[in-house]
């Protein structure tokens, strides 16, 4: 598949928005879905639907196999050692909550420290905050430099002998900064500290190799990765999944139950209580195949080109201030226009069919640090083209006109 043709694979672009073509520049929020994924959901429900794992009839057996096939596909895609290192959740937020809750229960005590960064999304902060309240732990934040970057140094500075886990984003959903995960993992492990990666923005855009990154936990959102809503993935090294307690309790995650004691199932069941998002997990296999077909190298290259092109165009616009200038950057640009509030920008762009996001992007810590109550953000997916950015540029001009800016 040629990456320049991918727009055709997404039925959403056959629709008009306010009578204009849809220019979707909000993929960091959620990506659009390729036809293969949508069709898979449709086919599963119309031809093959059953709950997994629990019944021995034909449909149930087929569904169970399909469900487990996705686990193997994900395992291979991210190069995990064992298929049981893949836990399905309802989203990345749940994946991080799962780790914070179970790791917190087992390993954190009063006075212990969890090290985050100022770039973290609320989903990689609030779950740790819960432990601050319940267990009296401390939360430290590695600080960004003037470029909106997190360096290895800024992490190292905040590590103490109380640091019990380090939790960082792979790719900032505001500045686009790509963090040196591999180095952070090395540093952390040299001090015996596990690391969790919030991979929401990394997974759809970067090559994922768990053996190379060597992180302990990696959280993924399906819906940002050309997959259905309601599915996420927690990758965790097997030793952690073996050692940590279960997160939610219910059907399917038990071994034996009686009135006094309960023993829990083996992996992968232990962390998958209740009926899971069967159809979504099964359809997510198509998302993985779709990404594999294009090839992550092609995706990285394509998005880098878009980033460079957009940076040049927006950079040439005097009224625009791009937020952050990280050394290693993914397909996300946040910006402000002097004299126009980001929400007004978003509304005006929307009238032309250009969908961007405005606000704090669930990163209030970062916005406080930058002294900005809100920013406007464009973010790329496989379906974006240079023409999309040309239209963005035109619509920004319109915006300046309306606000009487030069």
């Amino acid at each position: 598949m040629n990456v320049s043709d991918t727009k055709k694979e997404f039925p959403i672009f056959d629709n008009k928005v306010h009578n204009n073509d849809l220019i979707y520049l909000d993929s960091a929020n959620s990506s659009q879905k390729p036809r293969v994924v949508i069709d898979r959901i449709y086919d599963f429900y119309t031809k093959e639907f059953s709950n997994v794992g629990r019944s021995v009839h034909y449909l149930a057996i087929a569904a169970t196999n399909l469900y487990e096939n996705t686990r193997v596909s994900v395992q291979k895609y991210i190069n995990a050692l064992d298929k049981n290192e893949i836990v399905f959740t309802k989203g990345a937020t749940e994946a991080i909550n799962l780790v914070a809750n179970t790791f917190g229960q087992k390993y954190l005590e009063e006075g212990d420290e969890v090290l985050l960064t100022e770039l973290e999304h609320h989903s990689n902060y609030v779950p740790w905050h819960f432990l601050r309240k319940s267990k009296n732990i401390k939360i430290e934040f590695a600080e960004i430099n003037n470029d909106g970057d997190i360096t290895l140094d800024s992490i190292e500075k905040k590590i103490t002998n109380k640091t019990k886990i380090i939790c960082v984003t792979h790719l900032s959903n505001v500045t686009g900064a790509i963090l040196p995960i591999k180095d952070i993992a090395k540093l952390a492990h040299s001090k015996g500290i596990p690391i969790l990666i919030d991979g929401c923005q990394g997974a759809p855009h970067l090559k994922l190799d768990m053996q190379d990154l060597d992180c302990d936990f990696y959280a993924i959102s399906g819906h940002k990765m050309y997959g259905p809503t309601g599915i996420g993935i927690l990758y965790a090294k097997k030793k952690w999944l073996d050692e940590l307690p279960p997160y939610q309790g219910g059907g399917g995650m038990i071994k034996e139950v009686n009135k006094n004691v309960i023993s829990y199932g083996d992996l992968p069941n232990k962390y998958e209580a209740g009926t899971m998002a069967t159809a979504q997990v099964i359809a997510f296999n198509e998302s993985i195949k779709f990404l594999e077909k294009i090839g992550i190298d092609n995706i990285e290259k394509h998005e880098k080109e878009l980033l460079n092109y957009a940076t040049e165009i927006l950079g040439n616009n005097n009224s625009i201030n791009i937020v952050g200038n990280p050394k290693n950057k993914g397909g996300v640009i946040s910006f402000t226009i002097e004299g126009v509030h980001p929400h007004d920008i978003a509304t005006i762009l929307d009238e032309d069919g250009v969908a961007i996001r405005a606000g704090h992007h669930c990163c209030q810590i970062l916005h406080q640090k930058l002294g900005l109550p809100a920013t406007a953000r464009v973010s790329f997916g496989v379906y974006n083209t240079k023409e999309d950015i040309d239209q963005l540029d035109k619509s920004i001009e319109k915006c300046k006109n309306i606000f009487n800016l030069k």
Partner: protein
Amino acid sequence: MNLKELYQEIILDHGKNPRNLRKTDNFNKDAKGYNPLCGDKVHVYLKLNENKKVEDISFEGSGCAISMASASIMTDLVRGKEEIEVKEIVSDFLDMIKEKNELSNKILKDDEKTKLMCLSGVKKYPMRVKCATLSWHTLTSALENSQITINTEN
């Protein structure tokens, strides 16, 4: 074109140079408003005199053109009114934004109503209604002296 209705000159003017963007000395009523999704914030300060008349009103905060203009116009229009009149204006404005086509209160003069009607452009932008109403809800809360932060999310 709807955008022209939304961003009328008067809105852009008030948005850019909001009136009464300061903190009233010796205010005796105040309340904070917040929109958690977009981060818009407003803090309204009121000074009611012994006759329950608005001696001064002001606000602090940050937000988009719509929310700043709305707060600016609001504070301009209610200064000097009696508390009971203020409440009527507020509820008339909120009704207009929600469903009615015009303002029906007998307190504001015609040119004042025209000014206020400039905000009616948001009716075509459901997500922006909150921007226009945040300061008004906050004013109500200040009058009621309620301690709750107004949250236009719900």
